């Protein structure tokens, strides 16, 4: 199978998958339950969700390992099973997707604040990423996808941890930005320009943004990314920000609404387009179709 970097090198625009959390909850994950525990308890559920996104046309399928670092797993008493959780997550998806898509192994923030601002030393976080990412790569992940980062130092630690395990595994690194009157910043104050330089400098192959915004803000963020870096850019947008409708939380952006903005992303040069919170297989199907259409115009 050609690697994701080969595909991007040949000019392809790829489609990511959508939200997993809501799919897991629809299949019985209780609030507060550890999403990664599903990997050990009911892996068939993961294969089922993977198939929905595959059939919707996703080229990358994300593992359910966002909180798979030992620092996150500790809260659920699964710290000692870090290797097993991450390995099994990749194995289950690899079997489910076969040659139809890349297994993109998710790595989220540890939830710790690095010293001197918080109480966690960088070495602790680096070791945690090392254990998680080491297991993901050893199990055969096609891509390491470091995502939803707000602290540039933590994101760099994750990228370097991946690079320390493998010099050639494709590494995606995405951060979450807030729109302010002064422009886009992560809550820790990182700009898109700084993110590009540091993440690429640390060894990321693909950079961009996920979560925190609906598709319209993401188009603005994408414009900044493509103007600040020459490496491929990935955008994984929420289906808007959640709204409360009669006691039920709803992500407001429809598949059509998101798909209508995909053309702008492709025009800006974004190379992987997928979904984050609130997106469904229907959103991914619409995004897939919009990518294909924009390629044929």
């Amino acid at each position: 199978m050609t690697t994701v970097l080969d595909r991007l090198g040949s000019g392809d625009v790829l489609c990511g998958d959508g939200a997993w959390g809501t799919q897991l909850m629809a299949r019985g994950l209780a609030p507060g339950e550890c999403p990664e525990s599903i990997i050990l308890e009911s892996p068939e559920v993961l294969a089922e969700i993977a198939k929905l996104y595959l059939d919707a046309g996703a080229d990358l399928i994300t593992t359910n390992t966002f909180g798979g670092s030992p620092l996150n797993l500790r809260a659920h008493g699964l710290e000692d099973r870090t290797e097993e959780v991450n390995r099994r997550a990749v194995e289950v998806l690899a079997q489910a997707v076969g040659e139809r898509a890349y297994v993109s192994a998710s790595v989220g923030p540890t939830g710790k604040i690095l010293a001197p601002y918080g109480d966690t030393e960088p070495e602790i976080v680096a070791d945690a990423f090392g254990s998680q990412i080491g297991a993901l790569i050893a199990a055969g992940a096609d891509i390491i996808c470091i995502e939803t980062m707000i602290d540039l130092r933590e994101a760099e630690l994750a990228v370097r941890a991946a690079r320390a395990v493998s010099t050639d595994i494709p590494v995606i690194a995405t951060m979450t930005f807030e729109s302010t009157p002064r422009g886009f910043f992560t809550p820790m104050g990182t700009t898109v320009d700084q993110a590009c330089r540091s993440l690429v400098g640390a060894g990321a192959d693909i950079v961009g943004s996920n979560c925190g915004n609906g598709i319209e803000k993401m188009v603005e963020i994408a414009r900044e990314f493509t103007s600040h870096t020459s490496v491929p850019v990935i955008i994984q947008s929420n289906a808007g920000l959640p709204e409360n409708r009669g006691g039920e939380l709803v992500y407001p952006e429809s598949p059509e609404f998101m798909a209508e903005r995909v053309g702008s992303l492709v025009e800006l040069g974004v190379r992987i387009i997928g979904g984050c919170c609130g997106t469904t297989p229907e959103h991914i199907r619409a995004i897939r179709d919009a990518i294909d259409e924009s390629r044929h115009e």
Partner: protein
Amino acid sequence: MDTLQLISEGLQRGEHENVAELTRKAIDEGLPATRILNDGLLAGMEVVGRRFGAHEIFLPEVLLSARAMNAGIEPLKPLLIAEDVPSLGKVVVGTVKGDLHDIGKNLVGIMLKGAGYEVVDIGADVAPEVFVDTAEAEGANVVGLSALLTTTMMGMKNVVEIVKERGLQDKIKVIVGGAPVSQEFADEIGADAYGYDAGNAVEIVKGLMA
């Protein structure tokens, strides 16, 4: 420049050792503890809060300033007690049941402490009755509820209901916050207020205590 001004500026720059030293110097100069607190430390923290709200500075700077605030409060504590200075108020903060995300809640706690409030942090995954039990036992004026997950934020409503059931709504105010939470949601569940970030939470608490 006078020592209080230097304390305020040192705090704004996040220099915790400098702020502790300057605070001790102000005490040695014979300044009343309340003046050191209000015109030095809190004055500095107010500027920090304002600049954070205007996105001129971000969390790292705020966290360093909060650390400097705590460093300055330490030598002042015995004097504030001796001068019988009443506490600004007490706030119980925690993340709601089913939710383990504590960064937002921690930041709110840090900012409130920085603004001079007593903070009782009861951690994450907290049952609704524990919020109210703790507030009653501690004599707190406000409970601050945090949630990151859309699935757990609905639990905030239970806390509001327990406060009402026990007839405590005049004594204990409920303030909510977190990524998926909004003013509209706060209104719907009957919370007293909504804070959109840690800096705003301090403003809201000030308003509720007034």
